[in-house]
Every structure is written in C-alpha cells, then in structure tokens.
C-alpha cells in the first residue's frame, strides 16, 4: 500500500455525477421525499451538537432498509462520493458534520428493536434506536443497557458505537466497547459484514473493538447486539460538599483505596454547582467549592454496607456536608442537577464550549488549579463537571459568540487544556471523540509514526478515504495547515510533517 494514500485529499467533485444526477440515482430505490436536495430541508443536518462547525452536504438521504444503505454505499463508492453517517447528531466533536461534496447518510429511520433475549441477556437493535429506548424496552425483563451518556434520551446506539460513548455509570459497567457483542457493518464498497458473535469473543483480530470509537471512518453500522445487565436491587447516592477541590479530589482517591468501585462518581466545581442548583433546585449547597456525587448499587445488603463506608470516608476527608438519598425520588433529584449541568451552564453564559480530556485521578487538583490560571489568562470563565471516578474532565468554557474574537480565544484556551491533559499523562478525549474538533490536538498525543499507523488501518477498510473524510486522524494536508512544515522525509512522506512526540 502506498504511503501516499494517506495524503490523498477528499475525492474530486468533478469526476462524478452532480447533485441532481446523484439524487436521481438514489430516488430509484429510496422514497423520493427522503432524498433531500434543497438547502432548507437540509439545514437541520448541517452540524452535530458542536454547532460552531457547520457545513451543507451535497445531499441528505434517509434510507430505511439495509439493502438501501448498501445500494447508497455502492453508488457512492463507484463515483467516489464521500459519505458521512449520522445518528441523532448529538455528537460533540463535529464527527457527523456533513461533507460539502458528499452524501449525509442518516440512520434515523432505523429505529426498531429487533429482538430482546431475556435469558441470554442481549438486545439486537437497529442503529437509530436511542440509547435510553433499549433500557426502557428491557426493563420489563428486569434488565437494562449499561452505558448511559447524559444525552441518552436522544443519542443513538449507532452513534454510541461510533464514539465508544461512556456515561456516569461506566466506572463500574464499562464503555460501549465493553457492552457490544456484535455489529453488522456495511463497508465502503457496500458489502455486508458481521463482526462479533453470540459468544463473548471471536477468533482473529478484535475487529469489534476496532469499530468501537472509529467515528464512522471504517464503515456504516446497520445493526448492533448489546449485552443487557440485571437492574440492581438497589441504588443510592451520597452527595458530599467540600470547601476545596483538593479535598474533594483526595476523597475520590480515598474511595478507590477503600476498595469500593462506585456505580458512578461525579464531581462539580463551584461554577457548576451554582448553575446546576439554580436550574434544577436539587438542594446542592451553593457555597461549596466542590461537590461529589457517589452512587453505590448492588444487592440491598451490599448497598447498605457500602453507603455507610462512603459516608464515613467523606467525613474523614473533611466533607462540609453530606446527604444520602433516602428514596428513589431523592436519588433522582440529586442526579437531576448533575444531568442538567450542561444546559444549566448554558443559562449563565450565552455560549459554552465543552472539553473532554482524561487525566490520571491523582492529577485532578493540579489540573484544576492550572485551568483556573488559564481561565484568568484568557479572561474566560470555566465551569467543571466531570466523571471524577475515571478522571474524565468536562471543562465548560463560557463565552459569547457575539463578541468578535471570543470563540477563537475559547478554542485556544480549550487546546491548552487538552495539551495539559496529555502532559500529565492523560489524553485529549475520553468519550466525545476527535471528529474535526480535536484533530489539531492529535499530534500532541501521537507521533508521526503512530498517526501513519492509524492511516494504514483506515486504508485497510477504506482505501480511497471516502468515509467521513477529514475527520479523526489528521492528514498531511491538515497538518500543513496546523503547524510549520518540515521537509518530508523519504521514508515517511505523508505524516512526517506533522506530529509531536510523547510526553
């Protein structure tokens, strides 16, 4: 395989059929109303949850059968037209942002739960099924689907697979990759593959793991079989307030050292606490500097035992107040503040920008302190809501897009935060993905050889690079835009002009 394949720019628009001709081809097998050409109807598809990045596609199509998806892929492959898959568009890295010369392939019509096997504890679903809908359907069997992104009312399982999404409970129950057994994939050529099986592993390379988190760059997911878990007998949450971020951070370490793996362990800083309380009235102490929510689940006896230990531990680590849910209603209320933290922050600022770095837990206090300094430097407030148990930060930078230059400043601040995460031994994204948004930070985490290896993986699935082009891994062309260019070496002409080195 030629190294130069890595550098190939998006396919040229001039070689294939134009918009009208392509639409005509699709209308032969897709309901004509769902082959969308006009800008007005296309508008809702111009971006995902990261609305600062917008683009109008050539066409939007909404097929409703797997055969139609295959047909779309075949036609696009034949004419080298880029394809961008889309679930619910809640992604936060511009991963589902359309390609101007390409087809936006929405899986919105694939909404059926095909099968629930209560004894085998699995659900087989179409990719457009919402995350929460799986748990709702499984509930009557006493089962649920583990990963619970905060966007779970809206986001789809296809998007979850593409991003390897996490959630509040992934500390104990794992990410998407830990909970998917089998995936049906349509390749860029339109071929239908089954990856994974009804067993817990399959022979050969772990392609299933490779697909999780592949951001729609390797194929289109048309069916997913997930594991279901028994709903725990009991779950309770302890809320503890602290007068410093350091103290709360130490308490997080304390819980882990105590040998307890909570179902969820979340932290908020003072900005986030106040915003969430004003929004949700969950009873959070507004004068606290940091708040921890620690959920424990399991059998009734286990929860009782662990809750007592968690309470004692928070006391020992200097909590200024502690409240433990006494009922399901109270548990829901305490979580409501956390779960609505993003929209709540949205109310205290015209705009906010959500970052997603992960760090070793021990670096929490250091990183938060540094971030505070950066906040002062850039003159932008930052609120922190995050999955403390697994060190996944969600700094929300508050800004006003109507103030000229403020978004650029925000992006620069965000980039600095991600670089800091890498510096302390972490990574640039824990669950939201790279997409377009973090592509500039990829060379901070990976060196040129590693980026080249990623391109070779991509090329094994999609040699011409028509699936979600320009996302996930920076190409030479993109790298050239980001940093000054070194002369390309003979051995690695493609990525050698971009990339940093490891910490």
């Amino acid at each position, binding site marked *: 395989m030629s190294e130069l394949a890595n550098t190939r720019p998006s396919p040229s628009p001039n070689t294939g059929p134009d918009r009208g001709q392509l639409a005509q081809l699709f209308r032969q097998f897709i309901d004509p109303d769902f082959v969308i050409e006009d800008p007005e109807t296309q508008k809702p598809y111009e971006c995902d949850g990261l609305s600062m990045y917008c683009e109008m596609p050539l066409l939007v199509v909404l097929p409703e059968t797997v055969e139609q998806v295959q047909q779309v892929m075949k036609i696009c492959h034949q004419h080298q037209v880029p394809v961008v898959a889309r679930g619910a568009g809640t992604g936060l890295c511009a991963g589902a942002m359309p390609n101007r010369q390409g087809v936006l392939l929405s899986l919105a019509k694939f909404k059926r739960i095909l099968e629930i096997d209560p004894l085998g504890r699995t659900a087989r679903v179409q990719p457009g099924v919402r995350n929460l809908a799986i748990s709702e359907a499984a509930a009557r069997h*006493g089962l649920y689907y583990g990963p619970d992104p905060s966007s779970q009312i809206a986001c789809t399982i296809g998007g979850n697979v593409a991003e390897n999404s996490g959630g509040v409970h992934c500390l104990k129950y794992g990410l998407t990759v830990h909970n998917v057994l089998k995936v049906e994939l349509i390749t860029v050529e339109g071929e239908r*593959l089954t990856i994974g099986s009804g067993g817990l*592993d399959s022979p*050969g390379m772990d392609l299933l793991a490779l697909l999780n988190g592949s951001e729609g760059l390797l194929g289109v997911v048309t069916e997913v079989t997930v594991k279901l878990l028994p709903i725990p007998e009991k779950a309770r949450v302890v809320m503890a307030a602290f007068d410093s971020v350091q103290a709360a951070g130490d308490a997080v370490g304390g819980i*882990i050292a105590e040998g307890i793996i909570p179902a969820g362990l979340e932290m908020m800083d003072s900005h986030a606490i106040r915003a969430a309380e004003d929004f949700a009235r969950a009873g959070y102490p507004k004068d606290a500097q940091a708040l921890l929510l620690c959920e424990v689940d*399991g*059998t009734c006896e286990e929860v009782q035992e662990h809750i007592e230990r968690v309470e004692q531990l928070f006391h020992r680590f200097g909590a200024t107040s502690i409240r433990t849910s006494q009922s399901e209603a109270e548990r829901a209320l305490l979580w409501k503040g956390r779960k609505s933290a993003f929209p709540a922050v949205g109310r205290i600022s015209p705009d906010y920008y959500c970052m997603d770095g992960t760090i070793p837990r021990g670096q929490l206090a250091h990183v938060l302190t540094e971030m505070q300094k950066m906040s002062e430097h850039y003159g932008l407030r930052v609120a922190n809501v995050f999955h403390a148990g697994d060190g996944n930060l969600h700094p929300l930078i508050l800004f006003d897009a109507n103030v000229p230059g403020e978004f650029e400043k925000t992006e620069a601040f965000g980039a600095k935060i991600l670089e800091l995460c890498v510096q302390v031994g972490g990574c640039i994204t824990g669950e939201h993905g790279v997409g377009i948004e973090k592509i500039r930070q990829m060379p901070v985490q990976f060196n040129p*050889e590693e980026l080249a290896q990623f391109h070779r993986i991509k090329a094994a699935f999609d040699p011409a690079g028509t699936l979600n082009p320009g996302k996930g891994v920076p190409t030479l062309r993109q790298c050239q835009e980001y940093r000054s260019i070194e002369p390309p070496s003979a051995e690695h002409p493609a990525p050698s002009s971009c990339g940093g080195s490891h910490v």
Partner: protein
Amino acid sequence: MSDLTRQLQQQVLSARSEGRQLNIVGGGSKAFMGRQSSGDLLDVGQHRGVVSYQPVELVVTARAGTPIGEIEALLEEQGQMLAFEPPRFSDQSTLGGTLACNLSGPGRPWQGSMRDHLLGIRLINGRGEALRFGGQVMKNVAGYDVSRLMAGAMGTLGVITEVSLKVLPRPACQVTLVESMGLDEALRVSNERAATPKPISAVCWWQGKLHTRLAGARSSVESTVQQWGGEPYSEADEFWRQLRDQQLEFFAGDTPLWRFSVSPTAPQPALDGEWLVDWGGAQRWLRAAGDIERYEPVAKEMGGSVTLFKGGDRSGEVFHSQPHALQTLQQRLKRGFDPDSLFNPGRLYSWM
C-alpha cells in the same frame, strides 16, 4: 528487569533487511496454541518488569515479558487483582502473551476479559517502529483502538512490548456453591440466575456438578447463599485456580481439546466426547478426536465459533474459518502493520 525495546527494535529491523521471519515468544507457556509457525526466535521474555503501579489510579503498567504471577503478587499486597483472572499455563506465562491470545479466566462473563481491562500498549510494528497507543487513563477514544486489536491476533501484527491494565479491588468475600445437576438443567439454572442482580462471579459445570462462585460484599454474598441454598465448597479456591490454569483432570492427556465460544443459552449439541462448561455456558470445552470442519457448523448454530485449543493437527487450521470479506480485511490490516510478514507467519491462520 530491563528495558530491551531498543534491542527488540534492532532485531526486527535486521530481520526485515535480511528477509527473515520472526517467531515471537514470551514465556513459551502458550507454544501449544495456534498453528505451527516458523521463523527465528524473538525472545520478549527478558523484556520484563513492572514500569508503574499506582493502586489509587487502579492502573498497572508492565513490560510484555513480565510473568503474570509477578504482577498478581504485587497487586495482592495492595488488596487488588487482575479481575480477568489470566490463566497461567506455566510460571512463565507473560503479560504480552496473555494479551496476544486474549486469555481470561472463569470470571470473564462478569468481570470482563483481558481486552476489556486493557488501557494501552507499546508495540513494535513490522517497520521496526516503537509505537504507543491508548494510555494509562480509564478512558481514551483518540485514534483507533489499536491496543484491543492485538487481543487474539496471536502476535501477527507486531511485538507487544508494554501493557497498561485496569486493576480492581479484590472482593471482600467469596463463596462457591456446588449443586448436582445435569448439563441441560445447569445451563437453564445458570442463565436464569445470571439475569438476576446477584453477585455471581463464575459458573462452571463439570461431571454432573454446577459450581457457582459468588463474590462481593460479605452481607450480599451471605444473603444470596441463604436464598439459593446449596453446599459451600471448601476447596473452591483450588478448583477455580485449576480450572483457570487447565490443571483439572479434565484437561489432562493427549486427546484434542476444543473450545466452543458460543451463546450461553445455546442448547448443548449432541457431540461425542467429554464436556466441561465454563463462563455460565459461553465457553464450552470438549475432549474429542473430532475435526474442525465437522464442528464449525455446530458452533455456528450455537451462535459462536470453535477452536482447536490444544493437541490434534496443528498444521491445518485451528481457528474457526473466517468469511472471505473478513479474511481480506485482516490480511489488509496485517499488511498495514507488518508489510513484510515478519511476525508469527501462519500462527493464526494459514493465510496470515
């Protein structure tokens, strides 16, 4: 206890320039697995030692040649463990080999597999480049998941030189119940139980007995024991260890050992031979002469795949055949990592 990355890189580069192929060996404890392979020895066993271990971070990082036993002893001092219970086919079983074979012990359905606990790796590819993927943090979705791609690849993609894993606290209490029952009933009972929120951590049926291990908070384990009844087993630790390391009597002798990785609810097929059913029905072992072409359709019907795990003819295919498209994809991936086919030729499949 030394870092031999440079030397290993050098060996790969010289093999590449001299057109030689390499047979990657850690402790050699899994030499019986996979197909017969050729190539000059590339010894990773001396590239060993724990690089970092911070109990509060729940992460351990060690060089690939580090024996599993050494890592587990270190974790035990801190009341922690590798929750996927890596088998030790000998004292020499290494971390790298365990990842390449994606081996996990009895707790796998409930606590996850080797690949599930994997956080990151360092790897030398067929170009002799030392690369790092993933990391030492719990979540990382930057770039493709190259680390997990190694699980089960049998060393065909590169030389794994370092592995970071998530570790977990040891359970406060463990009790194993033993009940007499036939296999069909055992499958039904264990699947029904697995659908209830009880602290199950392993389920194995052998010789007319169902062994169910409960693990977690003492109160929760004890109340489940009361509810389910059955006899607490005093030799339990030894039983699970022997099962994990394939030292039970079932695994002795030269009769070929087949592994069916299937849906836990699949009805037991009528195949001659002795069976041991682990993973609550998802991993079923068979001792029988048999042949892979005959077993493949059976395993497929059971929702999974079959492997000739040990013994038998190791010059033919030993892993379940792959559909053409998946074969092509894996060959392309192989070329992307190892363009000159240096590593473990034919170990996984004859076409790899």
